[in-house]
Each structure stands twice: as structure tokens, then as C-alpha cells.
């Protein structure tokens, strides 16, 4: 390789960083999907209009990707003071500009108030939700408008690429990533550098590099937020990976349900091409690489590597047996590196800061950080990034703020349909790839769904099996038929038709399906059932032996009634009841006709006096 153009690559990036960055005065308003749903785009427009009106046009407004604390949206951060405002409405905008932006004063009503101490907290990093986080990957979201490549330059974007092209051989890149111990964030936890090495060594041309953005695990949305909020970090990681393995063509496979991610990735790819970061002779070197986006069409199994390849090739996404691994025969039977979106986003960081730095974060076997989506029955819902090894307790209670409405914690579900439910007794375990596996769950792509005493664990198992039954591609018998039969048994148990011995059948079938299935979907499909049996056997027994759903979820096993002491006779429930099951005189306690009642829950949601009881 010619040396001059390579050193030049570094120089070009240094100049770009100097030219664009770092910004001083700006407002970062979250425009992730969650905050958009809460109306953040209108606030953004209002901010821009108001800045103009108050002659402060030099202040930039960044419509950023997800800032994580989705519960509090729309939210914004005013730089350089970094004041954090939550639930911002259009009406608040003039005051934000005239006070906070122009004079640096805070508006206390928009600040976050600590739920226990009742103290107002000024900055993002003061909030309990953010305090213990380590947002080395995800934190960049708050500094950039994903549609503007110059914002990414301003935070040292593409510096890692410059460094790699100018100073490192492909082997050095692989060895650095290996030293960092980067493991796949998509769920499996396979060492990324081992894959890269395999593809580099494999015979076959062309070689492909793919980012798996088919985030199918229900309850997980961190990949979405990275693709939407910081697409260049994924692209930069892929370019570095392509250089390391010797690939010229890359693909990003994005879920059909993520239109904004597709838009931002397309803008980012186009901008990177224009800047000479993608395409022929990247940054003047003789390395060429380009990326194409492929959209999924709603099939969970396409997150599996061989099914994903089939889908990119335009076929039905059915997995195949992996006698030969993807590093040798992947997409179009050519050597292929497939890594998850979050894994790719970690690569520039490792190159920029070095493997030694990366090794200071995390546990013995799992290095770096992991982004989790903390959702379900929890006070602070949103996305968090924590060092590997943080305990579940810290995540749920310190960052998540515990369970709402004074309810009791029951379980946390990790790993999506391949994972399991972890009970309270295990909340002290440090979260990393190996520990979660040990307790019968898995890391998965990072969904953490918190459940309280009103969640039925049998129903949760039934839910996942129903999901997997629909999503099984149907190619191999153990998964297609076995999952269906397990699902039937769970349906029966939830309907009060469970029989003694069902649990044992479920366990035996679970083992057979795990052993006999072709791909990881079937191989891990029994996990939600097996883990709930392991930790919540008594709930299964209550359903089967006593025809009772202790959590009050399974419709066939519960009845609604009205607590005469609490009922004020306001009549709201009568209006919402779709089957006219509730009757009663005004201002007197009402009653429910159990035969007409479909237990739809409408009355419970509408009752302000907590008068409807479930038994």
C-alpha cells in the first residue's frame, strides 16, 4: 500500500474535526420515536422560531436521537450548562429561550424532581436514572443531530477510521478488537474478533460485512435508537470491520417496523459517500467499501444469521443447518461477518480509546458496556447503558426507581423469547453474558422487562410460546410442532384446563425441542417456560391444582367484583362496560353480573376509587 495517501487519511479527519467541532451553545431536543410520539417535533419547531424571534439565531437546535429517559419526554438539554428539562410543551418554549438560553437561568418547574428527596435536579448527570450509567456509546446521541454528518465530525466521528487507515494494518485492527474482548451484543455474546479473523482467513470473494438491525426481541429498542440517533457510529464501525476483513460490500438489515432508522441511515450513508468515507478509495487510500440498506418485512426469525442471509438474498427467511459457518459461507455462500448494530457502534470507541481503556470497563469475561431497554412495570422506563457487571438490583432500583404504585417486584425478563424470567432472589447477580446464562436466561439484545405481582408468570410463558409459535419458520419439526404443542398445554393451563403432569411434559418437551431444533429460535424457545417453571413453580401449581391465577391475569380463572365500601356509584364503569355487565343506582354501590362480564379490564382502568376487585 502506498504510504502517503494513508497518512493523509488521518490528516483529513483531523482537519474535519477541528473545523466542525465542538459546539458550545446549543439545545439538544430528543426526537427519538418515543419523544416524537409525545410531541417533541412541535417543540423543536417552536424552539427554532422563538430563537429567531429573540435574535439568538447563533444558538443551534439539535433534533437528536433517543436520549434514553423516554418516560419524561419530550425532553431537552440546554448546553453549555446542560440543564435538563422534562415534559416540555410548546408553551414553555419562549421562557426557555428568554431565561435559560439568553441568561442562563433555570426554570425550576421543568426540572426533574427527585421522587424521594423532592429536590429539583439540574443536570442530566444528577438524575438517579443517569447517575450510575456509563454512556460511552449511547451518550453520543445527545450531542448530534443524526441527519448531520458534521455533528458527528464534531465529536471526533470518523477519527477511528482515519487512524485505522493511516496507522494500522488489518491484522492490527483485529488484534486490537480481540484484546478489547468485544463480544456480540445481539445476544449470543460471540467474540467479534474471532469472526473477523475467520472471514479474513477464509477463501472466497467477495467478502461481506453485515450489520444486524433486525431487532426482533419484543421489549427491546436500543438498536433502533442507535440507528436512529447515531447512524454514523454504526457505519464507521462497519467500515473499520470491512477494512479488517477485506470486504468491499456491506449491508445493514433493518426491521420493517423502524422507518425512521431507515431514513437516518440512508441520509448518513449518502453523506458519508459525499465526504469520501464510503465508496471508492476511501479518504484517498486504495481501500473501497460501500453499504446498502436492506429492509426486513416482519419476521422474527430473520434475526438469525442464516435466515437473515436468505432474506437479504430476497428469499423467505428460513435458517439452514450450520455445518459450515457463516464466516466461510454466509451471504451468497461467501465469507460474511455479521454483527449486531450495537457491536459495530462499539468498534470506533475501541480504536479511538484503545483496548486497554475498554478493558477497564466490565467484568472478567464481558468487557465494555451494554445498552438495555428498561421497560414494563417500572417507574423510570427508558434506555440505559451500564458497565457489564452492574447488578440487576442497581438497574431496577437505583436507575429504574423501583416498581410503580407500591406494587411488589416479581421478576425481570431478559433475552426476549430466547431468555427467561429472573426472580427477586437473584437480583444481586452482576449482569453479564455468562451470569445470565447460568441462571437460565440470557443477555439477548438487551430487553429488560420488569414484572410486578400483577403479572402472571404462566401467562408470560404462554405469551412467549404463542409468539414463537407464530414466528417459527416451519422448516424443522421440533420447533414447528413442538412449540405448538407446548403452547397448547400452556393455553390449557391458563384456561383452567391444566392437568397434573403438564409441567413435567412441558419440561421434557422443552429439552427435546432445545436439542432437536435447527436454529437458535427453536433451540432457545423453551427457555421462557423452563425458567418460569424453575423459579415460579407454585404459580403453575395454583393454576393446575386450584384453578386459581394468583396474579389475577388469566381470564378463565378470575372474577371481577365491586367493593361496596369503595364504590361511590359514580357510574363511570357502567359507561365503559362493553357488555352491560355493571348495574346499580346512581350514588349507590354497583354490582357486576359475572355471567355477562368478559373481564376485559375496562372498568378497572376507568375506576378512580380502586373499587373493582379481581379474584
Amino acid at each position, binding site marked *: 500500500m502506498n504510504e502517503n495517501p494513508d497518512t493523509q487519511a488521518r490528516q483529513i479527519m483531523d482537519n474535519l474535526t477541528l473545523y466542525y467541532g465542538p459546539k458550545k451553545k446549543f439545545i439538544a431536543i430528543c426526537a427519538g420515536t418515543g419523544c416524537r410520539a409525545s410531541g417533541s417535533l412541535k417543540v423543536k419547531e417552536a424552539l427554532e422560531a422563538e430563537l429567531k424571534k429573540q435574535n439568538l439565531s447563533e444558538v443551534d437546535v439539535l433534533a437528536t436521537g433517543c436520549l434514553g429517559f423516554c418516560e419524561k419526554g419530550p425532553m431537552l438539554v440546554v448546553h453549555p450548562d446542560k440543564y435538563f428539562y422534562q415534559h416540555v410543551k410548546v408553551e414553555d418554549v419562549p421562557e426557555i429561550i428568554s431565561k435559560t438560553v439568553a441568561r442562563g437561568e433555570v426554570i425550576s418547574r421543568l426540572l426533574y424532581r427527585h421522587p424521594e428527596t423532592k429536590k429539583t435536579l439540574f443536570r442530566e448527570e444528577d438524575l438517579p436514572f443517569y447517575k450510575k450509567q456509563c454512556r460511552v456509546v449511547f451518550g453520543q446521541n445527545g450531542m448530534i443531530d443524526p441527519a448531520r454528518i458534521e455533528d458527528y465530525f464534531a465529536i471526533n466521528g470518523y477519527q477511528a477510521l482515519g487512524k485505522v487507515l493511516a496507522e494500522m494494518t488489518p491484522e492490527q485492527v483485529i488484534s486490537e478488537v480481540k484484546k478489547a474482548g468485544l463480544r456480540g451484543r445481539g445476544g449470543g455474546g460471540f467474540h467479534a474478533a474471532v469472526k473477523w479473523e475467520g472471514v479474513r482467513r477464509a477463501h472466497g470473494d467477495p467478502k461481506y460485512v453485515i450489520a444486524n438491525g433486525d431487532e426482533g426481541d419484543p421489549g427491546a*429498542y436500543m438498536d433502533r435508537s442507535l440507528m436512529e440517533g447515531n447512524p454514523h457510529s454504526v457505519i464507521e464501525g462497519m467500515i473499520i470491520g470491512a477494512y479488517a476483513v477485506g470486504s468491499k460490500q456491506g449491508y445493514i438489515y433493518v426491521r420493517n417496523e423502524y422507518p425512521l432508522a431507515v431514513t437516518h441511515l440512508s441520509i448518513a450513508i449518502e453523506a458519508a459517500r459525499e465526504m469520501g468515507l464510503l465508496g471508492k478509495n476511501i479518504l484517498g487510500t486504495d481501500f473501497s467499501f460501500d453499504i446498502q440498506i436492506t429492509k426486513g418485512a416482519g*419476521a422474527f426469525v430473520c434475526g438469525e444469521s442464516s435466515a437473515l442471509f436468505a432474506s437479504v438474498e430476497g428469499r423467505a427467511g428460513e435458517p439452514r443447518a450450520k455445518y459450515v459457518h457463516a464466516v466461510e459461507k454466509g451471504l451468497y455462500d461467501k465469507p460474511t461477518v455479521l454483527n449486531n448494530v450495537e457491536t459495530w457502534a462499539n468498534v470506533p470507541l475501541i480504536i479511538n480509546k484503545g483496548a486497554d481503556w475498554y478493558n477497564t470497563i466490565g467484568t472478567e469475561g464481558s468487557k465494555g458496556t451494554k445498552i438495555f431497554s428498561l421497560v414494563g412495570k417500572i417507574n423510570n422506563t427508558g434506555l440505559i447503558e451500564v458497565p457489564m457487571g452492574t447488578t440487576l438490583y442497581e438497574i431496577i432500583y437505583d436507575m429504574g426507581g423501583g416498581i410503580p404504585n407500591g406494587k411488589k417486584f416479581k421478576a425481570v425478563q431478559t433475552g426476549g423469547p430466547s431468555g427467561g424470567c429472573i426472580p427477586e432472589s437473584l437480583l444481586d447477580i452482576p449482569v453479564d453474558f455468562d451470569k445470565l446464562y447460568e441462571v437460565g436466561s440470557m443477555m439477548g439484545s438487551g430487553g429488560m422487562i420488569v414484572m410486578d405481582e400483577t403479572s402472571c408468570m404462566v401467562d408470560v410463558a404462554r405469551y412467549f410460546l404463542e409468539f414463537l409459535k407464530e414466528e417459527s419458520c416451519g422448516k424443522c419439526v421440533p420447533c414447528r410442532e413442538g412449540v405448538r404443542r407446548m403452547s397448547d398445554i400452556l393455553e390449557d393451563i391458563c384456561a383452567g384446563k391444566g392437568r397434573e403432569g403438564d409441567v413435567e411434559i412441558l419440561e421434557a418437551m422443552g429439552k427435546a425441542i432445545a436439542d432437536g431444533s435447527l436454529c437458535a429460535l427453536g433451540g432457545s424457545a423453551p427457555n421462557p417456560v423452563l425458567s418460569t417453571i424453575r423459579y415460579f413453580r407454585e404459580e403453575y401449581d395454583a393454576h393446575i391444582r386450584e384453578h386459581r391465577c394468583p396474579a389475577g391475569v388469566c381470564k378463565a380463572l378470575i372474577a371481577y367484583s365491586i367493593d361496596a365500601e369503595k364504590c361511590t356509584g359514580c357510574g363511570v364503569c357502567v359507561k*365503559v362496560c362493553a357488555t352491560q355487565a355493571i348495574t346499580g343506582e346512581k350514588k349507590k354501590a354497583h354490582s357486576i353480573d359475572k355471567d355477562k362480564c368478559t373481564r376485559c379490564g375496562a372498568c378497572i*382502568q376507568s375506576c378512580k376509587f380502586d373499587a373493582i376487585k379481581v379474584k
Partner: protein
Amino acid sequence: MTKPIGVAAKTRQIVKKHGGGKSAMIAVLQDIQETFNYLPKEALKAAARAMNVPMSRVYEAATFYTAFSLKPRGKHVVKICKGTACHVRGAAILQDRFETTLGIKPGGTTKDGKFSLETVNCVGACALGPVVVINADYHGQVTISKVDKIIKKINEEGAKS
């Protein structure tokens, strides 16, 4: 005024736009669905011819992926998120409400062609659960009374136009 272009001709344009290769199958089907709101039989036949693949190959992809519909869909597509986070926060209750109010099951379309009901495995807005996406609008923390309001609003808008 230009002559309205037929289903087959439009399909051929879509195939051409994607280069005609069979690896573009899913992208082609997505564009067909975007254009016609579903996958008309005529379009699938035309696509098979234009891409030079057997009809079975097109049908395989069209029926494998849940995003595709072989039946015409309603003007407003209601997608109920059934992700885990939405499930534990009561998505099933909302589904019940939509089913009873609209009188259709997931996959169905109301007789007047106004609503289609679908379920999605996860729309990735988990913090706002339970979530319902109508056309391209995300509705977060949906309750039964919100469901009633949403349906009412769409019906009223329909009456005006």
C-alpha cells in the same frame, strides 16, 4: 392528464427501479404494497414475469413475511403492539376493545373499508407501552378510553371529508 397506469405496468416499473434482480424481491414487494396498499394478484404475476422467476417464488416471499397482505387493507391500519412491555401493561385489553368496537379480528378489515386491525410483535417504543400505531402515528400509554377517542376521531374526520 396522464392515463392512469395499470397494475402490471406499475409493477414492471417497480421491478425495473430495483434493477430486476431476484435479490430485490422483498424490496419489490414492499414497494408494490406501498403503492396498492396490499399485494394484488395481478401485481405478483407481473413481478414474477418481470423478474424471471416462477410465481411460486414470489408467493413464497409474499406469504412468509407478516408485513405483506394479500387482501386489500383498510384506509386506516391499526397496529396493536404486542411486545412484552406492552403485553405486561395490558395490550390484550386494548386488542379486545378494538375487536369489539370495530367488529373485526386481527387481519380483518371493516366492511366499509375504513379500518384494518393488525398486531405487531414490537414497534420498539416500549417505554410508552401499551402502544398502538395508526397509519404512521404512534399513540403511547393507550387506555381503553383513549381507544374509544381514537376511533371516534377517525370516524368524525371520515364523516367530514
